């Protein structure tokens, strides 16, 4: 299986990909709560879902896992400031003397019955957030304004957005009319025992004591959120730190590189974070 996957690396592939069928290809995910049941229920009823939670707490991994579980292809669009509706829906292109219409990722997902994941939707321009409105209610339609057409969504199509309420709250927020169309699932950093499991699973080379220290340090560092730290130490960052340690870097240095340097430029704050890390690893 792995050999097969490796052959695909570095090769262009279509964005609509059915997940690998067998269990070995299952993305690793530890349930934190009842999010799996909620998501499955929403999927059964084809309701759009909003994943809320801080960066690096497992939203994307959760969705990969759910796509695998539900055996649906997953189309991910990372939204950014200049993302226009035509980036999502599609546009006319010139091809020789002809113009051809090219479907955007959303349109493709709607047609193929995939799960379309709009990551960090708030970042996108408001015009692009509005076009998903008809998709998210009973109509389940995608209007192609430029073509003067509309598409009834495939019966398996599902829209998922992610939304990090933390740092955009000032001046940047989803419109209430957009928000209330979704089933919301809240994510947070996992509980300590789950986080331990996750880090152990992601970095199997580390011994348990080291993982325990790493997770304890990370969780302690999290307390400084909002004391200058806008994004708390994420589970992903812990996994990165674990990987750095496994790659032979001294734990303190690895944590500095993975947990401290990326999140803050504030010297006092990094000192405080380092203080926590040194205390755990000294």
């Amino acid at each position, binding site marked *: 299986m792995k050999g097969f996957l490796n052959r695909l690396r570095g090769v262009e592939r279509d964005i609509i990909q059915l997940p690998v069928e067998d269990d070995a290809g299952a993305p690793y995910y530890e349930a934190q709560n009842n999010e799996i049941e909620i998501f499955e229920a929403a999927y059964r009823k084809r309701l759009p879902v909003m994943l809320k939670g801080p960066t690096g707490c497992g939203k994307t991994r959760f969705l990969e896992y759910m796509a695998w579980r539900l055996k649906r292809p997953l189309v991910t669009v990372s939204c950014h400031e200049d993302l226009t509706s035509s980036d999502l829906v599609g546009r*006319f*292109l010139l091809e020789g003397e002809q*113009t051809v219409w090219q479907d955007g990722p959303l349109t493709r997902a709607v047609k193929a019955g995939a799960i379309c994941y709009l990551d960090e939707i708030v970042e996108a321009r408001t015009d692009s957030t509005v076009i998903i409105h008809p998709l998210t209610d009973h109509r389940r339609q995608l209007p192609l304004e430029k073509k003067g057409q509309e598409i009834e969504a495939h019966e398996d199509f599902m829209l998922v957005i992610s939304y990090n309420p933390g740092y955009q709250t000032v*001046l940047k927020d989803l419109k209430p009319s957009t928000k209330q169309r979704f089933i919301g699932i809240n994510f947070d950093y996992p509980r300590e025992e789950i986080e331990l499991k996750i880090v152990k699973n992601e970095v199997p080379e580390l011994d348990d004591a080291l993982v325990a220290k790493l997770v304890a340090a990370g969780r*302690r560092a999290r307390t400084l959120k909002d004391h*200058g730290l*806008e994004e708390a130490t994420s589970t992903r960052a812990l996994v990165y730190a674990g990987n750095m340690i496994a790659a032979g870097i001294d734990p303190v240095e690895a944590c500095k590189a993975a947990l401290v340097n990326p999140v803050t430029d504030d010297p006092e*704050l990094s*000192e405080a974070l380092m*203080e926590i890390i040194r205390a755990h690893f000294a």
Partner: protein
Amino acid sequence: MTDSETLVAIQQALVDLEQISFVAHRDTQAALAVIQPYGNDVVLEWVLACKALFAHDRDAGKAFIRGSEAACIASQSVLSWTHQALQFLAWRGSWKAVDGYMGQLPDAYRSLGAEGEARWAALGLDWCERHLDSGIAYFRCPVLELEGGHGIAGIEEVVLPSLELFTKRRLALGTYLCGAIRVRNLLGIDAVLPWAKRGADILQAGRLRGEAFFKLESEESMSLLLENLPGFRTPEHQRLLQLVLYAWFGETFDLLEGNWSPDKGRAFIETDGEALYLPIALPSREEAILAILHAAGHMAFYSFEQRYIEALFKAVGREHPPLDEHQRITWRPLFAAYGEDMIRFQLIFDLCEDTRVDARIAATVPNYLGRLLAAAEAAPLPEGAAAAYLEWARLVLRWMAAGAPGGSDFEALRPLLSVEATVVDAYKTANEVYKNSILPYISLAERELAYIPGRSPNAARPVYPRRALDHAEFGTGTEDKDDVVKHDDIKPNPEQKQIPKHAAGEDPDFDIPPEETAGSGGRVGVGIPQPAHVMGYAKGAEYSEKGKPYAEWDYRDNRYKRNWAWVQEKQLTELDANEASKLLTQYAPALKRLKRAIQTQKPARMAPLRRQFDGDELDLEATMSYIAEKRAGMSPKANIYRQRVVQHRDTAVTLLADISTSIMQNNPNGGGRVVDSLRAGMLLFAESMEEVGDPYSLAGFASKYRDNVSYYAIKGFDERLTAHTRAILGGLSGRLATRMGAAIRHAVAGFDRAPSQRRLLLILSDGRPADYDDGGDERYLHEDTRMAVKEAVDAGVHPFCITLDAAGSQYLPQIFGPGHYLILDNINDLPKKLPEIYLRLRK
């Protein structure tokens, strides 16, 4: 002269002396015993000197005679110092110098030797020649301090720089000397000259200020010194320490500047149960971190919990002493029972309690004991009794760090390692240990040396009993734990001088307890309802001492009352820079977010406007889709250009805050007072506006009667945001009532000085307009405010009201018009919301 003649001469001199003074004669006789072995010639000379000095000045003579015995023993000679002393005869009123000289002689001989002593005396005599008072100061200065362990060179290095200061700037040695010695002891001799030169400059600017500088009494002198103090400087790392504490204990502690100064011995972090007092510098970073963890550990693990303190006094069988004026309690009675041996017990008690607390901290902070032990091992053993205590603390720590193995000498301390142990257990254990202990007697002076790095005397200050446990039981202690915006009641730092409230001067009833003016329209000054009656017009309009008059609208007569409300512009004089920086730290994340949001709005570069119908260059993407769509047979809009323009928003804003008495009341949503949010809100607003770059001004208003509307200009449009402005905002407090109309009119007039075309007046209020003299007629000032708003709009100013009054919707629509006001339900949101609101409005 033969021997017999000499003896006669001596006798004669003594008789003469006796005739002048009985006391002098008696003292001379007493000292003679020591002088006699040096031979009769010497004795004669000495006695003559006594007589001469006594004749010159009785006090000088007495001082000489009384000091002779000790001087003779120390110097093993007589004539050298006798000759020196005789030189004092040259000056009238030199007895103080003689007194000082004789007093210091033994030390001078002992520490400097005969040669050094001669030099020391010569230097002093030179000074007497130059300026007698300086000479007196020189001789009165303890010689041991003067030399500071460096011998005569030490004296010269301290004294010589002052020569220039004296000749050029008439700086007396007395002014300079004490300070200079302290500076040298603290920072080394190299620091003395720059310090003295700076002092001389200051002295030129002003005598008083300069003298205060030299006495190390002035802020600038101290700060100059402290700037150069070696070690880990806590003020610069306050935030780090704060963050470390928050990370480990999940609480914010007040970190205040303690009153430690470098010459007061060892630097400790002290606590009074409410705040931690940091010395300006600690020897090292590691020690600072350990010390702050330890001190905070005492607070977090209930060393100062009220119930335990009470239990403690109960265990001793006595009432605890009444709380002092600050509601603090002192530990002293606990130790009093131990009398002379008090310090010994105190140290043992401290060690027991420290052991308990450190065990608890170690459960939270990994590797804490290891670090504490490492620091303790590295500490040099002091001399004297303190060494035994330090060594004992080390052993206990070693035992703890090793996981408290059984069968050691410290079994008695084991109960303290339990989670349930309290300060009462520590006290009981301390008593056990005290009974069996062989630790030596220790003096107060040595006490500070007995602590290992990181620990400090626990009973250094009277404490405010904490009630964390009481709160926890009712579930109120942890409620707002996750809330960034945590408002603790601001309590004065007893170390710092509070500016008395009436220093502000202008508010005679500042101290009137807060009245209910917020909410659904509570009233101030409600007495017998009086009609706001027009008694005549004020004469001679325009600006006078009464301030600037404005008309006021009387809805009952349907006309303006001319020159009715008088507005005086005043300055706020209560400053609190500490509070301001505290607020800024507290809201740092919010501010950072705001600034970033502002930056995204700000045209930092010439942002291209895309998809324009007109412009300098083609928007390639738009063009592509235009052509493609055109080819596809559609008729797209021709918005295919890009334009580079600076989006210029020309807006000036005044933030006008209602600072009536009602803001001093407690926040209905919990967490501090309204004024705390107001301060933070205005600070954040100002900081954000600096980022926005729009011209803005800040003002507050309060009123008492129509002829006394105070308008406090905090920052004008053309002024910069300075530390002073911040301090004003930090010290903002409430007074009097809310005559909003007059304040609005005055603020609108202030826009004359604003450079921008678009003008926005943000009014921040917590209640309806009201004043003492509105006769209970709410509508009167409402109507007047409504008219003031209307006038403002006519003058091209856009007023917008932000209110903290939940019932604001009852009256604000009438006054400001729908959509021109905003009600903030949660006052705690104010700091974050205020700049946001502005940004929304200016779009």
